């Protein structure tokens, strides 16, 4: 699904350089649930940004369905993001001028219009447990609720891939558990997930886990001992196929 080769990002400052991501290889197969760990500043967000075509790599390639996205037009990459990739930011990333429901519907503006989007948005809000706040504005939500809304928004166009940057950061353990259960369910339904986290306790949720250190993937721990080990054998349904 996504194949990353020699991916490098160097930020040039006036008098020094930061190698945020350094020669990373990564292979994301459909149906996988990939976890990326690493200390703050090791380049996780930068890596995710490059996967989604939001950050231009200094070196290396990102291939989506075998196509190097550097060779796609900006519109095509935007289309890819709109239809194939759901993105959950490290911060909530909700637009403050829109209600919860409108935030969830926002990505439908970038797809061909479907009259069922409204119903689907309500379903998703119910699924993430914030349906009762549909008409609230983001600043009135708790950070856990914001994260849930952001997840609902990432799923509205039925993406095949969900990229989540610390979706459970600064959440209490119970809320984190609920969100992880939701991710697990989505993954079972066929959504491929790439997720960044600091919390080693989450290892069991992933089908693959990687550790990053100073821009490099340095370790590839054994596949987690979580009960749903054999995810690759489940059929590669995407949530889009389900709608």
């Amino acid at each position, binding site marked *: 699904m996504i194949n990353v080769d020699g991916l490098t990002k160097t930020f040039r400052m006036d008098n020094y350089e930061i190698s945020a991501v350094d020669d990373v290889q990564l292979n994301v197969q459909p149906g996988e649930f990939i976890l990326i760990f690493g200390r703050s500043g090791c380049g996780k967000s930068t890596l995710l940004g490059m996967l989604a075509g*939001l950050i231009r790599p200094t070196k290396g390639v990102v291939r989506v369905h075998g196509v190097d996205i550097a060779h796609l037009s900006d519109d095509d990459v935007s289309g*890819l993001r709109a239809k194939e990739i759901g993105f959950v930011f490290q911060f909530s990333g909700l637009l403050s001028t829109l209600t919860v429901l409108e935030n969830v519907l926002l990505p439908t503006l970038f797809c061909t219009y479907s009259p069922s989007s*409204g119903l689907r948005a309500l379903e998703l809000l119910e699924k993430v447990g914030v349906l009762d706040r549909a008409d609230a504005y983001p600043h009135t939500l708790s950070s856990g609720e914001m994260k849930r809304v952001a997840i609902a928004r990432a799923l509205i166009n039925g993406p095949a891939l969900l990229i989540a940057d610390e979706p459970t950061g600064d959440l209490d353990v119970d809320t984190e558990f609920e969100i992880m259960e939701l991710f697990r369910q989505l993954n079972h339904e066929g959504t491929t997930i790439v997720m960044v986290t600091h919390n080693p306790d989450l290892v069991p949720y992933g089908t693959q886990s990687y550790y990053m250190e100073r821009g490099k993937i340095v370790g590839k721990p054994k596949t987690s001992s979580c009960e749903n080990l054999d995810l690759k054998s489940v059929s590669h349904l995407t949530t889009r196929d389900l709608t």
Partner: protein
Amino acid sequence: MSKPPDFHFFRLVARNLGNRPYRNIATIFAFAIIAATFFSSQYLMSGAQQSLDAGISRMGADILVVPEDYAGAGQTVILAGTPTSFFFEDSGFEKISRIPGVAKASPQIYIATLFASCCAAPVQMIAIDPKRDFTIAAWLKENPGLRLGKDDIIIGSAIIQNVGNDLLFYGHTFHVVGVLKQTGMGVDNAVFTRFEDAYVMAEESGQKAVKKLIIPEEKVSAVLVKVNPGTSPAVVASEIMAQVPGTKTILPNGLLNAVSGQLSAITRILYGASLAVTIVSVPLLGVISAMVAHERRKEVSILRALGATKAFVVRLLLVESFSLAIMGGCIGIGVSATILVLYQDFIMHLLKIPFIIPSLTTILVQGGSALLLSIVVGGVSALYPVIIFIRSEPYESIRGGES
């Protein structure tokens, strides 16, 4: 929820505009000021111009011929109605009517009246020759049944008297038989009578009036000329000046220039104000839009991450800016139009310009162009955020801060 919710581009625009009141009100205000100044100066200028046109067409003339030394006074009669008297040989008049291209020529005698009992200010008396006149004739034609008989006068709209009243000039009694439509010009302060009656009035003034009035025989003050259709008034005018020495011609255009000269102070103030406002507002809007650009980088990055194309974001920024420009423009035009109409008399008095309210079409055109100016400025002020956005990498600004 009964109806499934839906979301579209203009909803997003409306939300963005509606939920950022402070910034948007400041922006709308800047646009309103630009549109208001631009609209007001155009409105005042065209009102003054329309007033001139009306004054000249009231005279019904293509050319006004006056004695050389009195060109300024001639303009004053038409523009302000400040009473004056001046004369030139009637024989000149005969020559004028024979010049090729002249369709009609009509002599007039201008008589400055003293302070009349009727009126707050001295009145300009204009004596006409009914046989050759076309100034009052046109008006008489529009008002069938009316005629200018012995000792009758037709008065300008600024003279507050009714039809049927008697007015005294140089001890001579005149009857008001008609009131002309407002022109905003000198004609509004004039009374029209016949040559005969003026001569009689002058004759009697020795006994009846405080000061004797002398109207030299065989002399007139001005000759109004109508040219043949298709003939250039300018050509005829220079022919008149060549053939009748000692005369000066005034053309409507020339009159306009004279007025612009006279009004140049006001004109300069108005255009200067528009320019100053625009010069001040554009950087102001620039600063606002730079702030906006900065503030919105994150929002724009979020949109991009969710799949918005560059074209979508540019469209969003432009439509929002144009919406603010249109709102501000309409408010500015609406408010200034209301003020200009409500306080018209006061403003005209203050600016001392001839004025009538421009036609609705003219007002609409002026409103439209003021609105267009706001829209253009709106487009220009949106350029900065758009350029900033196009240059930046979508994700760069996302990392910025927590939300």
